[in-house]
């Protein structure tokens, strides 16, 4: 039967055998059909055909899948788009669209809500830090200066205070966790900002008005001829240049005293502040371990090795679960072997053991942090202690630079005290407007540079005019640190002595069966002798 060419284009129903590419079922047009007739469709440009129901199911499934949805309506082989019709009343379209819009809005909301939560938490932390910073500053520089430079009302605070104050508690806490002593804390630079800062608030206004009045302005020339005071030292210069020296010197002195008292050099890990295995804190039911990047001191490798061995052995608390903040390799058996290999100075061993005994009870994260946060209060306490003591000692009074007793109301404006050498009283030397106008540009430049430097290094007039609380607080805190270290050495020394003096009580074999003991023959001879003596 020859196929007659027709002008009609064939459709799916003209096929002899129809094969659905989805369910792979065949339907032959010539054979009788079993079951109900199923609609066929040829939806694209290639030769793939399918049952309409199978194709619809496939489209539905791929539209539901997020990865396949964009391609759901395309033929997998030729890529032609399927054309679909459906009853989609306006109401359905409106609902779908509004559903999508609501979905998007919901997503925006969750993002904003999360951001909002973070912002709230961050802000409250910031407020706490700033509040603490203000309290710490008040303790460091004294109430009088605090009322002039900062005041209790945040409205008066200069913009730099909002950055400086919250950093104070952070720097205090970090300074207790220094891995190497060469990294200096942030605290001193933070505090150095305050001496040069100008007075704020009501006090500033008062100063301004004071000097405006003509009778006070006339006092200015007289001030030029007063002899300035050299002590207390300029705060900024002191903090930047002298404090590091004092720190280094103190550290060397401490090491020497340690060696003298305990008879052995200071162990490596205490020297660096952090044991080689990382910091370890016993917080009751659990242990926190912090791994820091510690540079081992190469001068004493021998001791260092022994240190690590001892460390691994003694500091293994068996029951509590470990919270490792970092991966920790289990190298304890190896360390124990190390400790056994290295010949150890027995004294060093004892000191090591003493330190570890103390360490087990001392290490707690909360203790370090709380200690750090108490530093301003401690220095304030020491300062006021020194203040009270100075009333009885003239040397102390001169050393601390205390010029007057009893709180001053005006503070800083009064002319009773001689101006500090280090602070340039701008009105005192170059204040008068006439002088400024008479100077050549070069002189103006030089003099203004001098003024700026003097204010920076010496501190503002307000600072220098006030009672130098900061100086005695500083000195007091230094004394406190020295006393604390002395106490620590004493503790260590006593612990060492205790370890050395330990003896175990020796008992005789009273309750033990004599037959189980491998005794010397002399013992039996002695017993015979005793019996003979007893019977006499």
């Amino acid at each position, binding site marked *: 039967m020859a196929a007659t060419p027709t002008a009609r284009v064939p459709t799916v129903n003209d096929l002899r055998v129809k094969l659905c590419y989805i369910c792979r079922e065949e339907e032959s047009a010539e054979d009788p059909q079993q079951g109900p007739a199923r609609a066929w469709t040829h939806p694209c440009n290639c030769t793939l055909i399918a049952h309409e129901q199978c194709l619809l199911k496939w489209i539905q499934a791929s539209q539901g*899948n997020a990865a396949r949805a964009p391609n759901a309506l395309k033929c997998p*082989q030729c890529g032609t788009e399927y054309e679909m019709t459906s009853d989609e009343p306006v109401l359905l379209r409106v609902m779908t669209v509004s559903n999508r819009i609501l979905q998007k809005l919901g997503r925006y909301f969750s993002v904003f809500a999360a951001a909002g939560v973070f912002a709230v938490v961050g802000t409250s932390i910031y407020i706490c830090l700033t509040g603490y910073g203000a309290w710490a500053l008040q303790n460091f520089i004294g109430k009088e200066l605090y009322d002039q430079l900062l005041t209790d009302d945040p409205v008066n605070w200069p913009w730099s205070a909002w950055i400086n104050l919250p950093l104070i508690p952070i720097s205090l806490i970090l300074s207790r966790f220094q891995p190497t002593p060469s990294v200096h804390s942030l605290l001193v630079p933070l505090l150095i900002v305050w001496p040069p800062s100008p007075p704020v608030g009501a006090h500033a206004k008062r100063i301004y008005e004071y000097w405006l009045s003509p009778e006070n302005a006339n006092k200015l020339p007289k001030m030029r001829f007063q002899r300035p005071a050299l002590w207390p030292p300029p705060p900024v210069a002191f903090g930047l240049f002298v404090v590091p020296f004092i720190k280094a010197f103190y550290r060397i002195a401490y090491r020497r005293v340690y060696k003298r008292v305990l008879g052995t050099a200071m162990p490596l890990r205490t020297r660096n502040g952090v044991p080689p295995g990382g910091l370890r804190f016993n917080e009751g039911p659990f242990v926190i371990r912090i791994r820091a990047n510690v540079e081992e001191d190469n001068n004493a490798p021998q001791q260092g090795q022994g240190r690590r061995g001892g460390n691994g052995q003694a500091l293994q608390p068996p029951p509590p679960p470990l919270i490792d903040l970092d991966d920790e390799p289990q190298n304890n058996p190896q360390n124990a072997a190390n400790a056994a290999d290295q010949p150890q100075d027995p004294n060093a061993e004892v000191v090591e053991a003493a330190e570890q005994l103390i360490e087990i009870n001392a290490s707690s994260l909360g203790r370090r942090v709380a200690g750090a946060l108490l530093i301003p209060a401690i220095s304030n306490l020491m300062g006021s202690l020194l203040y009270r003591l100075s009333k009885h000692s003239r040397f102390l009074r001169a050393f601390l630079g205390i010029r007057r007793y009893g709180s001053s109301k005006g503070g800083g404006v009064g002319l009773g005290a001689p101006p500090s050498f280090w602070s340039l009283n701008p009105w005192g030397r170059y204040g008068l407007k006439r002088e400024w106008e008479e100077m050549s540009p070069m002189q103006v430049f030089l003099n203004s540079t001098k003024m700026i430097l003097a204010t920076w290094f010496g501190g503002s007039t307000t600072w220098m005019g006030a009672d130098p609380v900061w100086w005695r607080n500083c000195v007091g805190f230094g004394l406190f640190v020295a006393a604390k270290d002395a106490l620590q050495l004493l503790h260590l020394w006593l612990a060492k002595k205790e370890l050395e003096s330990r003896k175990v009580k020796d008992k005789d074999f009273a309750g033990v069966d004599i037959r189980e003991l491998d005794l010397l023959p002399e013992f039996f001879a002695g017993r015979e002798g005793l019996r003979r003596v007893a019977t006499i």
Partner: protein
Amino acid sequence: MASIAARRLAKELREIQSEGCPVGITLLQADDFSKWLFTIEVMGDSLYQGEVYTLQFRFDPQYPISSPAVQFVVTDGKQAPIHPHVYSNGHICASILGNEWSPVLSVVAVCVTLQSMLASCKKKERPVDNDRYVRTAPENPKKTLFHYDGKRKALSVSVYANAVRSQTIPQEELTTDV
């Protein structure tokens, strides 16, 4: 409608038994309509010459609307081939098993595609994130969301090639660029 999967798989099985598998692919086990096993070997000159791997297909009642879960078997001493798209736990990163699956493909087509994927490999290496993936991978590879960057094109060429073998498509539809 679970029988759609059963009917289709029965049909495919009949075809395999009557026409046989392509070279390098043999049916190991097809006892039920939930799990089938094949061995796959790359013929000719390739990095995997002489190596035989076992491929496992798992079907759910929605096959072929849903794709089968395909992975290399790594139990009983068997290993997955070392290929940039094959993880050491046997999971395969292939677009035809994911968002490019369509009912036009079949079990044999997938085997052939994977065969050509292995054959076209230039360097034997594991995927870059192999260790991390193997540690956190779900048991069923279909649960993983693979990203197919730059791999899609290479696979679609071979899919087209197979489609050519089974049905005719106009010449201009063939793409040759990879």
